């Protein structure tokens, strides 16, 4: 069973958002389940701070040895910081997806809604790990 913290919100594309320090800011990464399915992550291509994305828009790509996936923005916003540490050590996505393996810090657009996101229970049932 993969780790699905109750305190986070999820997309059906396997990204999560976690509350960050700044006002209206969140950290975005991929779930423990997603990293397990991908296998050893070898490269994460991230946007530039200042780039803006709509909800559901691709903000980057993640490469494992034999798979590559788009990363989708869970909620509309502006990138205020990227996790530079992933460049040197992309394996952080595997070892600590919810912590050191975060990808972008996003300032949520005023008026953007989090309604479409999933709770931990809903995400667990999406990946068939409920009950």
């Amino acid at each position, binding site marked *: 069973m993969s780790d699905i913290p109750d305190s986070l919100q999820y997309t059906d594309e396997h990204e999560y958002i976690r509350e960050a320090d700044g006002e209206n800011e969140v950290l975005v990464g991929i779930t423990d389940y997603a990293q397990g399915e991908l*296998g*050893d992550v*070898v*490269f994460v291509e991230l946007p530039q701070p200042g780039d803006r994305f709509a909800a559901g828009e691709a903000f980057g790509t993640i*490469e494992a*040895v*034999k798979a*590559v996936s788009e990363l989708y923005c869970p909620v509309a916003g502006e990138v205020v910081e990227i996790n530079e540490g992933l460049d040197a050590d992309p*394996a952080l996505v595997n070892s600590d997806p919810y912590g050191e393996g975060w990808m972008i810090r996003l300032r949520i657009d005023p008026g953007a809604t989090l309604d479409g996101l999933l709770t931990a229970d809903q995400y667990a049932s999406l990946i068939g790990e409920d009950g």
Partner: protein
Amino acid sequence: MRFDIDLTGEFTRRHIGPSRADIDEMLGVVGVDSLDELVRQTVPESILLDRPLDLPDGISERRLIERARELARSNRPLRSYLGLGYHGTLTPGVILRNIMENPGWYTQYTPYQAEISQGRLEALLNFQTVVIDLTGLPIANASLLDEATAAAEAMQMLFNARGGDDRMVFCVSETCHPQTIAVVRGRAEPLDIEIRVGPPEDFPGGDDAESVFGALVQYPTTDGAVEDYASLADRLHASGAGLVVAADLLALTLLVEPGAFGADIAVGNTQRFGVPMGYGGPHAAYFATTEEFKRRIPGRIIGVSVDADGDPALRMALQTREQHIRRERATSNICTAQVLLAIMAGMYAVYHGPEGLRAIAERVHRLTSALAAGLRRLGHTVVHDVFFDTLRIEPGRASADEIIERALSLGINLRPYDDGTVGVALDETVRPEDIEDVLAAFAPDGDVGSGDAGSTARTGESGHPDWAMRRSAYLEHPVFHRYHSETEMLRYIHRLEVKDLSLNTSMIPLGSCTMKLNATSEMTPVTWPEFGTLHPFAPADQAEGYRELFDELERWLAEMSGFAACSLQPNSGAQGEYTGLLVIAARHRDRGEGHRDVCLIPSSAHGTNPASAVMAGMKVVVVKCDDYGNIDVGDLRSKAVEHADRLAAIMVTYPSTHGVFESAIREITATVHENGGLVYLDGANLNAQVGLCRPGDYGADVCHINLHKTFAIPHGGGGPGMGPICVTEELAPYLPGHPLAEVGGERGVLPVSAAPWGSASILLISWAYIAMLGREGTRAATEGAILNANYMASRLSEHFDVLYTGEHGRVGHEFILDLRPLKKDSGVTDEDVAKRLMDYGFHAPTMSFPVHGTIMVEPTESESKYELDRLCDALISIRKEIERIATGDLDREDNPLKNAPHTARMLTADEWNHAYTRAEAAYPAVWTRESKFWPPVRRVDNAFGDRNLVCACPPMETYESH
């Protein structure tokens, strides 16, 4: 019964593995009475060919060699000093015999199974190191198809890397080779890139410099000038564009390297590093670039990693760039490389070392300088002062025509330019007496004056101005210093060879790859000098043997595929796809329907299909497949109708990538035609059809043919390949042309390869294959492939789930074993099974294509019943091992599958701390006691290598510390 007094069936018996008696027994296991019955249960009735192919009777091997000799005699290999990226070379005998003519090297497949490919991976790493050192750029790939397409790939890479930029102009120096300019133009057209040809001094242009994303120059130029491109590089970089340099590797041993004057990409041909010209190929092109572009490089890259014990091990790196993963978002459609030829070029550098290469280059340059001095003495003008091995001469006396005519009478080809000047390009085969002959051609009265070219070359002035001289060292790695004696070289080549599993060890059952016999008689003529030393742009009347061969082969291929015309130009299957789509687009344009740009591609298609469609300027619309891998005809119909106004084509593989003859194929082709599109048939699986059914008969308009699959060209460890296309009468006018040869249709699309007939010399192999098998044998080969696959599927179906069969429960020429159910109970993956097969002495089948978590087996007709049984036994034995894991008899983690492959070193270590025995690990089957193939490394850590890309030979300490 008729006695085969003419030996028409002699070769068929050698080519097809099972004997007559075996075949009867195998039919019994499959459960049919005859081959004919099996064929009728496999191939849909509606497409079965109702007549024998219009091919000649087969001929014996002896007769084939006689015929090849006749063709060889019709070729006249002169001394060709034409240049244009192709040069005479002296292939060291130790490389010719032990690599180019050695099945231990040429029968290997692309090194997907790294653990049993370490030999050629090391040889390719040497090649990459040569390219990296000589170009002065830090990243190189393991070869591309030819220099012209490498230049086009460079353009495309810069184009794709523009990011949000809307720059659309690529500048090409007018002093590039004409075939390179033509291929680059062709590649630019569908992408709406504007090609601006002109003098590099004008690049990137004043007014609209910001619309230029890159520029291509030749170094030295096609007419021999060594130019200083440093300020060009600065100008391009200042305006945000990149510089591509097409550079001659031999010249780079003396001249300042592209990396030092600001090139972002260097490309070129490595042919003159010991690879025969072969009337156009095959040879390996190189591609080198900066760190910035490492994730955008087209083609395969060999990288250094470690194995399960932490020992150094090599494998293909950064595979996520490739089409089988990225599909329409891939960096390129290239998958076939020119591995065998890249290995030869790398070995040439290993054998000569840096001093040897420099000496070769200096000798050529000295002879060129002596020639220049002699020509000046004769009153001619040598146009460029700074040159390496190529001169452009403005005749001071006599006309260019007279000079070229005189040269011809002396057995020499010189290059005519449009403006009345003459070109001479020398190479390592040239001797002082050849220089005297060239001078004689330039002396209309026969008086070459008092000079002596030999002594001028030995003691005269030569060299290059300061700015042009190379300062940096190269090839300092020990591998380029250790093997300069023939004995050492022989052993080095052999040492690498035996690390790899080739067809001389066991069958290589790679689904969709078709690892059939590459018969010795087919291979023999390829290296004869009458075929090998011909320059691709030599006058047509010197290549009559080749022309006869092309005509016959084109006719045969068209007959077998059911089409009207054929182009032999594309150098790989993917290039064939791209060419076929260009031809389709040209036809639409000609009918005023140039807006047709939608290409339907089934979700089960090979990844090159969508990548090629994008290159041809088309938009990919994916068509669903049902649970059996067959095209969902309902979805196809609705998408064809939805896009009817813009429908250009469908790309369909037949039999499907799942190895099934879809019964709806006629309905599929008709639906596309009804909606204005044409049908591109991916001929990767043509080997299941020859003599039984023909793409042209069931509605295809274009079909490419992988000569390296169906028609016996060996895979060479990942190239050479050939992908000619056959087309209907309607499309024949659009077959690709070439600026330097009369070839293709009257409204032909621009060339797709540097040479007019692609890799001409290996066309001999396919020609020989068809000639020897003949009408009966080619069909028998197809039936044999279907029988072998169905026999194995029948034996294995008791132990594994065989996915996807046709209406009568038959597989085609290949079949898929589903391993996913086993993973749940045992944790064993397809990769574990693949690696465990190495312990049994086998190469794995194709993994996870076209279905994730499965393996696809293609035995081919050439494998005997004995060998098929051996592989079945190995797979069944592994199935039992998996069962033991599932029941707990073997540990879930510490078992022979998870730890596979097992090396001799691991087995002979003082300690053995595993939950199974050494014998279980290394000798799991009886035959391994008789003859054991030892994988040289344990399982390779792919992630480590991709996270830390190293694509040149690592320092020796890396090896010594282990």
